[in-house]
């Protein structure tokens, strides 16, 4: 019996940002994201309290997908971060922290949202044009003649996730694999037919739990899972046979011989008439016959192959692989040039066949896998990255980090530049726009139609937000400093700054007594000693000390020892998303919720 309940009217919230509950939730979310940030970030355990899987992570993608909020504003921000991540994979936490920080600063400053939005927009433009400048001080060129900067990029991504639990050697190994895999997927020469276009290959990741991290490896071609029983004795001969290329047929349709594709409904079979199952099997065997006469040597199917057909093919020396799964189909198509056949009732068209150069059985960890070697050029390169780790939690985090590293490396093909990591880009950029904004405040205020004091307030909030991101790298009670010459970020661990007692609020540290300041800045570009020019002075972050950053001239012949590099493309977009999202949230006047 259905019951009619009166429809509740929608709930309208006026200026949601002024609600304490909303603010509390936003602060909580901001704390969660901030505490995850960087190589010393804290992990979060996410589970559903009814014995479900426990996710331990500090990766924004995994975290934001798992955690949901009932607050519409938070949902909005989460969705935009996830959207950014789906396009660039990197800088998710950065986007979140910056966005929340901007909102927070505007609220604290007491600026009217409309004014703040205008100022934020203008400052974003200043930032983007600064980052796009040829001589931007926080940008370095990615040199494709050596692996150095690619390795640094990859290692920065991988080392930023503590849940991977890697030793230094393991980090190096995995970063090397990530770069290796990336290089393998860049094809040599042009793609035939379209000389001005390059089609990148792809990396397939295979993860194996319980093995040594250093057993992780990259193989050109594809590794396909084959259950032990499926490797027929004759397969070993096939895999050992001399050089190919071998012809390959690929099916996406189930060859299990069942009647499921006829859909629902009952079937009436006349007694004495042949069994429909047998008829289908005959059809399948005809297909097998054709494959054998066409000299197919590798026969693959996304789904199940009828055992009788498998048996027939084995008897004729064909290597059979079933249950590939949908994820592998596209890579196989890309590598072998085969067309996935979705029909078995008609003969296989000759152009559907693909090629592999050879195959062999590889033992990876505890698993036996079939290795399909790619045919020579011009097929785009497909490679397999086998990742091993000691337990599932760390393996998942490592897998996500590697995929992120691959994406970041790919982005360098479009823009062969990278940004200084370790918070240096943020402090440098903050110093730059602070300096520029202060000197040009009068004109900027006039053009935006706001008062100069409002503009300076907005500018201050914006710069502080950027520096907050750099500060978020610190989790253990340490402090962040910025040097007054280059405006790079220097992090001082907890307890160290106390004994010297020379950190002066608002004033620079005296040179020479900075025993507690690390030897290099966050990104590793600026060294404390052994550097030409004047001695460095420091001030704590967020103290608004007027400083004009001098871009560090990087000698063309000496490669700087950069420790951390961030993706330029991803960070630029993250900056835009964060500012625009903050503006959208500030602009929201009413939230109308349907509570039915």
């Amino acid at each position, binding site marked *: 019996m259905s019951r009619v309940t009166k429809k509740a009217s929608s709930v309208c919230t006026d200026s949601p940002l002024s609600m304490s509950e909303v603010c509390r939730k936003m602060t*909580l979310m901001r704390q*969660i994201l901030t*505490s995850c940030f960087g190589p*010393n970030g*804290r*992990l*979060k*355990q*996410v*589970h*559903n*309290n009814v*014995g479900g*899987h*426990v996710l*331990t992570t500090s990766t924004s993608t995994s975290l934001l997908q798992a955690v*949901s*909020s*009932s*607050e519409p504003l938070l949902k909005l921000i989460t969705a935009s971060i996830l959207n950014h991540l789906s396009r660039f994979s990197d800088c998710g936490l950065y986007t979140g922290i910056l966005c929340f920080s901007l909102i927070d600063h505007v609220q604290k400053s007491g600026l009217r949202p409309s004014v703040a939005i205008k100022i934020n927009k203008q400052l974003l433009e200043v930032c983007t044009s600064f980052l796009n400048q040829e001589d931007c001080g926080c940008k370095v060129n990615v040199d494709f003649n050596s692996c150095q900067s690619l390795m640094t990029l990859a290692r920065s991504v991988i080392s930023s996730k503590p849940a991977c*639990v890697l*030793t230094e050697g393991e980090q190096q190994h995995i970063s090397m694999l990530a770069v290796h895999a990336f290089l393998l997927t860049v094809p040599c020469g042009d793609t035939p037919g379209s000389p001005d276009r390059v089609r990148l290959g792809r990396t397939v990741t295979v993860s194996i739990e*319980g*093995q040594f991290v250093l057993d992780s490896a990259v193989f050109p071609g594809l590794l396909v899972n084959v259950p032990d*029983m499926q*490797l027929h*004795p004759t*397969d*070993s001969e096939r895999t050992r046979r001399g050089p190919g290329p071998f012809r390959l047929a690929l099916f996406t349709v189930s060859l*299990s011989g*069942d009647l*499921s594709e006829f859909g629902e*409904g*009952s*079937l*009436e*079979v*006349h*007694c*004495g008439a042949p069994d429909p199952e047998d008829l289908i099997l005959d059809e399948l065997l005809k297909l097998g016959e054709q494959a054998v006469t066409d000299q197919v040597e590798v026969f693959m199917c996304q*789904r*199940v192959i*009828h*055992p*009788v057909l498998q*048996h027939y093919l084995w008897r004729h020396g064909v290597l059979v692989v079933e249950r590939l799964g949908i994820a592998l189909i596209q890579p196989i198509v890309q590598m072998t040039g085969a067309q996935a056949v979705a029909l078995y009732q008609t003969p296989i068209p000759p152009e559907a066949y693909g090629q592999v150069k050879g195959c*062999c*059985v*590889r*033992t990876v960890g505890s698993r*036996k896998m079939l290795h399909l070697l790619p045919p020579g050029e011009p097929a785009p390169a497909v490679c397999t990255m086998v990742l091993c780790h*000691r*337990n*599932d*939690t*760390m393996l998942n985090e490592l897998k996500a980090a590697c995929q992120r590293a691959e994406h970041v490396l790919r982005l360098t093909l479009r823009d062969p530049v990278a940004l200084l990591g370790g918070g240096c880009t943020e402090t440098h950029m903050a110093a730059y726009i602070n300096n520029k904004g202060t000197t040009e405040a009068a004109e900027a205020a006039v053009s935006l139609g706001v008062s100069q004091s409002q503009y300076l307030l907005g500018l201050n909030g914006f710069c502080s937000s950027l520096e907050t991101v750099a500060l978020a790298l610190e989790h253990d*009670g340490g402090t962040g400093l910025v040097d007054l010459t280059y405006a790079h970020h220097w992090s001082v*661990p907890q*307890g160290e700054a106390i004994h010297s007692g020379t950190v002066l609020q608002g004033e620079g540290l005296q040179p020479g007594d900075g025993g507690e300041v690390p*030897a290099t800045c966050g990104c590793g570009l600026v060294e404390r000693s052994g550097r030409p020019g004047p001695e460095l002075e420091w001030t704590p972050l967020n103290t608004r000390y007027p400083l004009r950053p001098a871009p560090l001239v990087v000698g063309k012949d000496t490669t700087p020892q950069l420790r951390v590099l961030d993706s330029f493309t991803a960070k630029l977009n993250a900056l835009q998303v964060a500012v625009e999202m903050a503006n959208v949230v500030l602009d929201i006047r009413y939230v109308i919720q349907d509570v039915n």
Partner: protein
Amino acid sequence: MGSTIISQRLHVGLQQLTALAAVTHSFLGPNKNHKFIQDESTGESSLVCTCFRVLEHLDLTCSVGQLANETIQAHQKVFHSGAGCLLFMAGVWSRAALECLHRGISIPHIVSAMSEGLDICCEVCRSISVSIEDVRPVASDSGTPVLQGSPHTVLRNPVTGMNSSHGALNNKKQSRIKLTHSRHFCANDKADENTTPGLFSHAVSSKGVDIPHLAEAVSHGCVAAMSLVVEVSKIQSKNNGSGDSCRTFDVNKLVTCTLPGLSEDHSCVLPGCVILLSAEQASLVHHMKEQKWQVVLINGDLSEKYRHLGFNNKNDISQVTDKLDLKGLSKEDDWEDNVLTTLLKNNVNLVLVNGEASERLTQHCMSHRILVVERVKPDILKDFAETTGAVPVTYATQLSKHCVGTRVEISIWRDCSGNRRRASMAVNIVADRTALVTVVLTTSVHSKLQTLEDCFWGCAYRLHHTLKDRKLLPGAGKTELLCVQTLQKHIKDNGEQTPQAKQGRAGNPHRADVFQLMADGWMDYISTLMLNSGTCSKVDAWTTINQQLKDFNGGLSLDANFSRLLLRDDTEDGMMSPNMKRSAGKVYDNMTVKFEAWRKALDLVFLVLQTDTEIITGIDPKQVEGQSNVMVL
């Protein structure tokens, strides 16, 4: 639905990990105390004495418990040994980490110092590891070991103790030479493993080693189980053409068969496989003795209704007919006739089925003197496929001449019919040239079966890892003692450093503190080992260990007395056999397994230590209202 956030600034997780690990403290060492786990709701109970079984049976509601379980099961799956050590160390090190936090050491410092400490210790342990060629009865003239370099643990063998002093020296020299060879051998082995061209698992090669002696060294008190393992090696070597000597051991060619009801001394090792049959079927076997038979292998069920995996059965197919079926033959009859004809045509005498076999067909076959055996393990089928040349098929109707395997012997092994249970006979089926060996484990206490099986596999894998590593670590706590000593040495050296060096950025100001706490963890391990051995109380144990460490630093090496002490049997009922007492000084541990267990324990601690927040998803915010330390997102 929102998410709930629990902030864990108090590091409850580390305490939970310590508490969980404490459950398994009594499993450490050779004298294991069983635990009885009872489920209040169902009344079910089980007897356990290994760490991974405990976790398997516990209802782990906390997220840390689940994380620990995940790690332990993954370790067990790969190594089949060392899970107890893993959880123990995770427990003591999480206590160490907690203490570090109390002392105000920051998390990055704890993490870096602890992983550095482990790296240092693993390096030192690796350097004192003993090549398996050196683990043999070596006589020494005076009982005090003469030490130069690697084997710190030349032990006196009471049996050959006083034979000849010259012989001992010669022996040692020879083994040194062998050591260099073995390294090369190792390298080749590893390269091979990466690109296995063939499909067949290979036995771990063990040229020039004394398997029975090695087995004794890693038996860890499971003498009975280990002697079964040695027996396996003997049979495998024989099949391999190595004669009577123990030359090879392949853990992949090993299956266990558990038979409750018989007493434990009936456990034994047989070539081929052992299968339980009904008395009726067994009577057929009586006629099949002493001949070679033909075999087929069915991968799936042997029934008309069975379809292969992935086949979606359509239920609504109806048969329509326009005339009355007078013969009354069903589809199943047709199928049965078909199968039987195929089997007879191909002269098949034995059908091994992975799944279940249709009872009617089994009966029919029996009347034609064809034995159908159901529920055969996949490992066994695989071995038969390799050794008899039979090709496994899914449907019996698929069978043809080339699928038939040859030269299989079958014999009755033992009547296992209990007084009340169904009459059953254990039958031994052996393929020609097979390397497959079955270990029959028997016990009169049914609930001990699982424990026996776990114990046996533990022994088998310890031997396997020994042969694979070709290196062993001194056991009975000696390796741990060395770790403690190593860390203490580093603490001392660190203290003597110039203040400037200490201030260096690379240096960790709290390194010494963390090292000390980490070393205490290992001390805890050794003392628990001693406590469990029944030799002394925990306090006495600490005193003894500290005394040992002093001697050790004074230039003396770890001597056998220490490990004797560990295993001295003071219990009144004399739980230890004289055999065990004799071997007390010669206990060894697997190197790779131990290192991995330590590493994984530290992983677990790090994951929990670095977690600051627990997020529970899918909870109605109203449920948690009013709870402190819980926030709603």
